């Protein structure tokens, strides 16, 4: 809270309450608020809009890119697997055409064929068998003991009888090993038929799927159209287990769709039916993982936005505060100037009035003076009433009163004359006493003790008498206002360390609270607001002291009193007014 108070600029505390000629030109708080708001809107809204747009576009582009990549991968893999199967199917078809039924029934020939196939096609072919129309295996070459097995009940056998060629699902069969078979029907001259059947291990598929670059936690597997896994899947179980994902309807080209796991995790699923087989190639990628790249990009975007917004806001706040503060300062200077002008005008008219009053009074005073003098002269010089002490006393009383009145009018004239700037050699004690004489009457009435104490070694200084008078008068008036009846005001004049003269005005008045002390020279700071105080007296005093090259400081303790210290230089540096102006008027 204290920090907030410290960084709050002055204008923030100004409430547009004062009316009349001396009020601030603007409502600074409102200007500040509006300029911050408007600048922030015009700079932040487009930035946020563009960033959001970029966010959406990038997100969309990345997603499209992942879909496309998934589709391409599925498509390529499908081609390889499709080719793998159709190649082997074609090989079997060729064997059936190229060999007579008898040759195929010959185990030796069949073994030779199996060896050739293995040699030409690499892995995949496990065994070969020839099955008669009754479903009984006539010839078998391979590692399993399947001679004479009866297949007429097996679903694949029925399919190959129907279709001529058949690629089966993966199944365990008699050998209890996951495999698939490719079977080709061979017609016999007697109208009957036999079937050449090759079984393929699923290892080549799995090798192929494992070698695919699906990245991270991606999963690629083959499933049949009933949802039974045909290869091991990383997440959905072993071969021949039921797949825990819905099987899409047949579609002749590669598809990418969104899916989700049972836990609700988003998935990107690419699939393709492999034509001529019951197989469906599926590649499943976790959306979250795919979007890691997006998250990095997004983090960058968000960081960029946050940094930009912070920077923009800082600049806006800083520049608005700077601008409005300067406006406020200028306005305050203007107001201060107005007040000073008004003050100067007031002083000038007081001066003019004092001068004319004094002049007007001086003439009749001079007459009274001369007449009384003449009466006395008549009494004494002509010896008419020289012995009449009472008459002489009366005349002397008149003369004394005239002298007193004369002193007052002369002082008024001095005061008025000094309002014009003029620099002269001044004994500060004289000025202080002169000013004190203005308040003598009030002080006597209130039994306030006024004391001037001059230290040894105080030199006369060159300064502006009128300004000094105003300065001293302001301070002395303040002191009188702060003191109770019977108080003490002491003015101490002493040589200042480092040259010049130091004046201390100490009173034993009410004192100034510590929190107000730093502000008492500020314009418009007043504790007497509402009681006729403008809050300008001390700020004008401060400016006057500065104008004649001096410094003013204050120390105070509540209940103990206040001490104003003014330090004046030996002469005014670069005086603005002309030197020793001394116009004489009669």
């Amino acid at each position, binding site marked *: 809270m204290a920090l907030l108070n410290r960084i709050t600029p002055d204008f923030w505390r100004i409430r547009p309450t004062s009316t009349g000629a001396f009020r601030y030109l603007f409502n600074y708080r409102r200007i500040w608020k509006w300029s911050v708001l408007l600048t922030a809107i015009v700079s932040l809204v487009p930035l946020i809009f563009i960033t959001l747009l970029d966010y959406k576009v990038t997100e969309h582009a990345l997603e499209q890119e992942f879909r496309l990549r998934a589709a391409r991968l599925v498509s390529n893999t499908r081609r390889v697997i499709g080719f793998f199967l159709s190649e082997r199917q074609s090989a079997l078809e060729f064997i059936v055409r190229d060999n007579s039924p008898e040759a195929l029934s010959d185990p030796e020939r069949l073994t030779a064929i199996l060896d050739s196939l293995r040699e030409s096609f690499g892995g995949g072919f496990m065994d070969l068998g020839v099955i008669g129309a009754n479903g009984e295996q006539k010839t078998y070459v391979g590692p399993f003991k399947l001679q004479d097995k009866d297949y007429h009940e097996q679903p694949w056998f029925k399919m190959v009888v129907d279709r001529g060629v058949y690629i089966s699902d993966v199944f365990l069969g008699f050998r209890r090993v996951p495999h698939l078979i490719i079977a080709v029907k061979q017609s016999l001259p007697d109208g009957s038929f036999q079937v050449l059947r090759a079984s393929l291990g699923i290892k080549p598929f799995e090798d192929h799927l494992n070698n695919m670059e699906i990245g991270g936690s991606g999963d690629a597997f083959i499933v049949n159209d009933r949802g039974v896994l045909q290869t091991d899947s990383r997440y959905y179980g072993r071969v021949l287990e039921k797949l825990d994902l819905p099987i899409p309807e047949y579609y002749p080209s590669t598809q990418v769709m969104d899916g989700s796991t049972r836990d609700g995790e988003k998935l990107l699923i690419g699939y393709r039916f492999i034509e001529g087989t019951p197989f469906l190639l599926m590649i499943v990628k976790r959306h979250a993982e795919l979007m890691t790249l997006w998250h990095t990009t997004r983090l960058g975007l968000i960081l960029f936005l946050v940094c930009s917004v912070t920077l923009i806001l800082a600049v806006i706040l800083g520049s608005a505060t700077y601008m409005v503060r300067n406006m406020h300062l200028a306005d305050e200077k203007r107001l201060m100037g107005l007040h000073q002008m008004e003050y100067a005008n007031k002083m000038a008219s007081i001066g003019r009035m004092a*001068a004319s009053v*004094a*002049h*007007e009074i*001086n*003439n009749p*005073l*001079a*007459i*009274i*003076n*001369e*007449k009384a*003098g*003449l009466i006395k*002269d*008549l009494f004494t*010089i*002509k010896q008419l009433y020289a012995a009449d002490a009472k008459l002489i006393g009366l005349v002397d009383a008149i003369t004394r009163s*005239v*002298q007193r009145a*004369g002193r007052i009018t*002369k*002082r008024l*004239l*001095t005061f008025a*004359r*000094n309002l014009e700037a003029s620099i*002269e050699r001044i004994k500060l004690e004289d000025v202080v006493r002169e000013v004190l004489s203005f308040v003598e009457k009030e002080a006597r009435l209130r039994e306030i003790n006024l004391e001037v104490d001059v230290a040894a070694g105080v030199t006369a200084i060159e300064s502006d*008498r009128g300004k000094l008078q105003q300065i001293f008068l302001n301070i002395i008036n303040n002191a009188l206002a702060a003191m109770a009846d019977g108080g003490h005001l002491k003015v101490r004049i002493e040589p200042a360390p480092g040259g010049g003269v130091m004046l201390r005005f100490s009173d034993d008045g009410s004192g100034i609270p510590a929190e107000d002390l730093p502000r008492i020279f500020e314009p418009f700071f007043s504790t007497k607001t509402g009681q006729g105080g403008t809050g300008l007296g001390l700020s004008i005093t401060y400016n006057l002291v500065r104008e004649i090259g001096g410094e003013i400081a204050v120390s105070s303790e509540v209940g103990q009193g206040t001490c104003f210290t003014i330090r004046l230089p030996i002469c005014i540096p670069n005086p603005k007014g002309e030197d020793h102006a*001394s116009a*004489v*008027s*009669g």
Partner: protein
Amino acid sequence: MRVLLVDDEADLASALAERLDMRGIAAEWVTDGMEALQRAASNDFDVAVLDLKMPRIGGLELKARLQSLHPDMKFIFLTGYGSETDFKEVACHEGEACYLVKPVDIQILIDLIRRVTHSGGEA
């Protein structure tokens, strides 16, 4: 020693003249510049005591004109304006001319008259 007193206030001029007379200084008084010039044309005065501010012919102008008649004449001005600091009761400016601020003390005036006549110009 003859003194010419010029002040538009007849009451002041007459009383002052009479008081000077009583102290052995022959003083004549007039209330107007023209009258003063006429009086000076026919008489010889050592000192002129002039009010600075008078109708028609002011003190300074009158001084100039009297000076052309009597180049040796000394002048003392009286003024209702003025200040202690500028004049210090008796401050001298503009050559031999001196100022006194009203109301004046008769003794100070006499001292001044003596001073300007004896110093022979420079007071």
